[in-house]
């Protein structure tokens, strides 16, 4: 048997109090990340991918409730006490946000931002933290580190600021990094640069990563495994290369086909309708209204995870349609 994964989400439900009732944001999500592994969590807006990460950090906003089990190294994250939670957040995991400018306090210096995490949780004194921050800044290609420490966020470009965010994440030597759309706000060439730096650093240090993005091509290129989310649920999980080469869920296939390529021109196979949020989905498969393969059963009954070709796919008809998904593309 393989050893237990470093991080595991089982049957996660996230609900939000809304006008007296409750609204489902995330439904029955299960996911695991092994030591040293990178997993991509891919979905469009409202799919619940960012909410899942916030639940894993216990950073959900007020009025939101998470149920299920989130295990890190065997311990249950959702029931951690105050002290253990602080330890988990400060030493075991780290979070890289999408918009570094909003997530770094504009009135404090870059140095204060970088070191606060390790200094105020008693992992290093300020001098050690500063020294290590300088070393890491050099590693991620930030020149003139000593000067940068005294600058304010508004004096740095977006790409540079995101590298500062990466340094902040690496500083306490975490075992798992959550990256929430870390490059979405950046230009493509900067994205490539920042992504390369991030990958280089986590590989060197054997850090695991859960990478959240809306860009399936990007996720497939930088992760070992992928989980594709739609309307608050995971519809397909499997090795990244296999999923992008041969998608088994109609939604994954649709996403791959509607993405315009830089290399060839063809009429795009669009998915009709618009992406829905978890609470808008009916009783059946949430993708059924947009799915060209949907039958009566799909609209009536929510599909369970099926194992096929070493993957997990939430589709009633996966065996029947697996081979027809690619044909549609051409």
């Amino acid at each position, binding site marked *: 048997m393989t050893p237990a994964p470093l991080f595991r989400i089982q049957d996660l439900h996230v609900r939000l109090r809304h006008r007296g009732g409750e609204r489902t944001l995330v439904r029955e999500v299960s996911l695991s990340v092994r030591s040293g592994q990178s997993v991509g969590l891919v979905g*469009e807006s409202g799919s619940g991918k960012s909410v899942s990460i916030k639940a894993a950090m216990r950073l959900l906003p007020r009025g939101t409730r998470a149920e299920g089990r989130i295990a890190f190294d065997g311990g249950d994250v959702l029931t951690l006490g105050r002290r253990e939670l602080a330890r988990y957040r400060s030493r075991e995991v780290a979070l890289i946000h999408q918009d570094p400018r909003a997530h770094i306090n504009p009135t404090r210096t870059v140095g204060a931002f970088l070191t606060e995490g390790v200094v105020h949780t008693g992992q290093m004194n300020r001098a050690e933290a500063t020294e290590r921050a300088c070393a890491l800044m050099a590693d991620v290609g930030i020149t003139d580190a000593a000067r940068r420490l005294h600058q304010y966020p508004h004096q740095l470009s977006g790409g540079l600021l995101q590298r500062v965010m990466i340094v902040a994440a690496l500083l306490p030597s975490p075992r798992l990094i959550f990256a929430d759309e870390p490059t979405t706000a950046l230009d493509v060439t900067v994205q*490539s640069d920042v992504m390369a730096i991030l*990958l280089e650093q986590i590989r060197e240090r054997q850090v695991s990563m859960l990478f959240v993005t809306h860009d399936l091509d990007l996720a497939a290129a930088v992760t070992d495994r992928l989980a594709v989310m739609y309307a608050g649920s995971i519809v397909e999980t499997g090795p990244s290369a296999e999923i992008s080469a041969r998608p088994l869920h109609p939604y994954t296939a649709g996403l791959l086909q*509607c993405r315009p390529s830089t290399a060839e*021109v063809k009429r795009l196979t669009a998915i009709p309708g618009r*992406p829905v949020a978890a609470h808008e989905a009916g009783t059946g498969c949430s993708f059924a209204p947009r799915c060209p393969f949907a039958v009566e059963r799909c609209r009536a009954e929510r599909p369970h995870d099926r194992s096929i070709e070493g993957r997990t796919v939430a589709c009633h008809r996966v065996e029947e349609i697996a081979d027809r998904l690619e044909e549609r593309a051409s």
Partner: protein
Amino acid sequence: MTIPAHRDLVLDVRGLRKTFHSRNGGPREALRGIGFSIERGSCLAVVGESGSGKTTAARIVAGLESATSGTVVVTDGRAGGKTRHGVQMVFQDPYGSLDPRQAVGAGLHELLKIHGMRRRADRRTRVSELLESVGLDDRHAGRYPASLSGGQRQRVAIARALALNPALLILDEAVSALDVSVQAQVLNLLADIRERTRISYLFVSHDLGVVRQVSDTCIVLRNGRLIESGPTADVLDAPRQGYTRALVDAVPRPGWRPRRRPA
């Protein structure tokens, strides 16, 4: 570059310069002398990263901004007034592209009315036509923007632009804010419209995949300078400039690896 006389140009831009004067930061040159042209019925893509000047160029062509120097000639076959009715524009943000306090149909009626369509019955027919041409129908006429999805809003914005029969439609990152699955629908719609009519597009985008799908020719801008231009297929498949190469290489695709920029 001389232009053969037989080419039917809808837009001809030459020597475009734009300098912004901010009060504290000193002058900033957004465009440093660029030129391009669009043949009737074709689509030119303007490609570049943030700060390249692509949006400034589009806004100058539309007449929303004035150039510091250079010429913009629009040939729409009609007598032009102060604003160029022959040029219409669709903007990036689907939430800002429509007046939140005006129903879709009322907005279209208003546009047609100020352009001389007096009879209500005529306008009603035209509104139906326009909605249909962007994949919507009369049921959407009574709706307010708040009840429409992002993709539907951009469709309405396109219908509004088409209402004035422009010779040139500027699309400024018009599909960038949409989810991929919806983006594809709108891209297909734009292709259909161009097939049906003789409209030309000026398509501003940072997304090379999208550019490849919609445009015939493209120009690459960087820091206000024109780096490279030509047929889109040539530019993207065999870029001649290092910067264009870097742009193309940075787009994730199967088998792609992110690369650090040389320091």
